[in-house]
């Protein structure tokens, strides 16, 4: 590391440190296709999960569905910006919630830590994310979406969170 005058060392160290941290995060970040991620991460998730991918279009958004060998279906809703604004799941054990909520997972934990366990079904909203979960353990269902990214036509009737006709 090159020598720098004492009074400028801290900002240089800070910039290098944050660049190194960003790079490390980029290299170590799992292929998740979580809320807020770019649609390009869905294909990487497909490979990791050994899933079948089908893409359909509805209104202003696209639905990228991963069908897992275990029976779990994971659906990623992608808007015009190319970002995943919602993720839904059904058909098996509850998925890895970091994979689903991405950077918003910590908000979910902050909102629920220490609170009495929900019994049966649950819907919470925290810091721009809505979380819904329920179902028997082996047939769990749920969805999460970002309120500032979700398009208006997502809420129209005939919405297709899990596929099939309503």
């Amino acid at each position, binding site marked *: 590391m090159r020598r720098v005058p004492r009074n400028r060392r801290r900002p240089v160290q800070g910039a290098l440190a944050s660049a190194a941290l960003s790079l490390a995060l980029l290299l170590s970040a799992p292929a998740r296709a979580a809320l807020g991620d770019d649609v390009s991460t869905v294909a990487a998730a497909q490979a990791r*999960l*050994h899933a079948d991918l089908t893409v359909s279009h509805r209104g202003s958004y696209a639905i990228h569905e991963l069908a*897992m*060998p*275990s029976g779990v279906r994971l659906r990623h809703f992608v808007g015009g910006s190319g970002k995943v604004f919602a993720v*839904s799941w*059904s*058909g*098996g*054990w*509850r998925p*890895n*919630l*970091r994979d689903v909520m991405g950077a918003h*997972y910590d908000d*979910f*934990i902050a909102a*629920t*830590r*220490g*609170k*009495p*366990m*929900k*019994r*049966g*079904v*649950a*819907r*919470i909203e925290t810091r721009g994310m809505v*979380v*819904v*979960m*329920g*179902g*028997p*353990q*082996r*047939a*769990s*269902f*749920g*969805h999460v979406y970002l309120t500032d990214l979700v398009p208006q036509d*997502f*809420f129209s009737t005939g*919405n297709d*969170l*899990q*596929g*099939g006709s*309503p």
Partner: protein
Amino acid sequence: MILVIAGCGGGAGSSGTGGGAGAVDGGGNAGTDAGSPPAENTVAVTVDPGPPGTQNVNGLFTTVTLCVPGTTQCQTFDHFLVDTGSVGVRVLASELTLPLPAVKTGDGQRLVECLPFVLGTAWGPVASADVKVGGEAAMNLPVQVVGDPSFPVPAACTGSPVTDLQTLLARGILGVGVTAQDCGGACAQPVTSSVNPGLYYGCVSAPSSCAAVAAPIASQVTHPVAAFATDNNGTIITLPAIGAAGSATVQGTMTFGIGTRPNNGLGSATVLSLDRAGLATTTFPVNGKAYSSYIDSGSNGLYFLDSAISGLPACGASLDGFYCPPAAVGLGAVLSAGNGAHAMVSFSVANAGVLSAANSAFDDLAGDMPGFAMDPTSPGFDWGMPFFFGRSIYTAIEARGTPSGPYFAF
């Protein structure tokens, strides 16, 4: 002001009562007669506010005794949640004082489980215990010790940690669902297999690290009734009917075994066989549309559909998620299953806003199925505790009995 008759047993894990305490609210005649000894294949269950400091609504509880296997070193717990929606015995580490032997993996690591419950997660090691409920016992049973701080939660085990009385609202869970273990064959597959859901981990302690493992069936957290010597094919939960305003506490009975003794025959109950996911079908209204559905004593309300379909207005504000019709509404539905059976169900939905906070048991507390409005293919009905009042609900374990489980019957 209603006098709340809570279960005895303050303090961590201290002994609880075997049966209900004296007065019975609700006026039913189900449950053990205070004058005669209870049948060996039964145990008293209660709906009450729960352990001191908790405030349960429609929490169904019973007393469970755990022992170090093969010894008389035992601990009796009141207020274990009776849950037909999960399988296995789980006890809070903060309540347990027994040195239960560890269940280990083939490599000598500690077997630890990560089990999801709606938003929450029960993380903790698997241990062996003799489990006694009523007059029955399961010996050397794998149970989960929840919230043991010796094992930091690995990153892959997500969900809001359930760690203590404040988050669990009970001293433990008695899961009496329809499978013989909580996971089964899928968790016994190699970890690299895409069908293994990764619920079980092998952990070493210094430094602490955990990795997902294949857990042999015999090591998995097991349905306690399935491991009884007899009366081991299912359970019957019998609760009296209660009034529309609810009850402070309700006394009932859980009976072990279906069709194994004179006291546990199916009688005229309708058997609803369940699909692989544990689901049956509800048609609502009676001549209306069909929705996948499930019965679950671990759900504290009757959660179904949405305001548009049910015609019931939402409460809003602090009762978000519940229904608030101006006056109680009587409704009908038909429960049916793949075996062709069907049963008509009449149920009532009260204005949740007028139900008294002095009561803990309600047969008419209902709300919407969250997310159903946006996802019409998800389950439409969760028949929770309100459905259990005034009924005997049979829960039959897979591949056991005649007819064979898995089924619910009532």
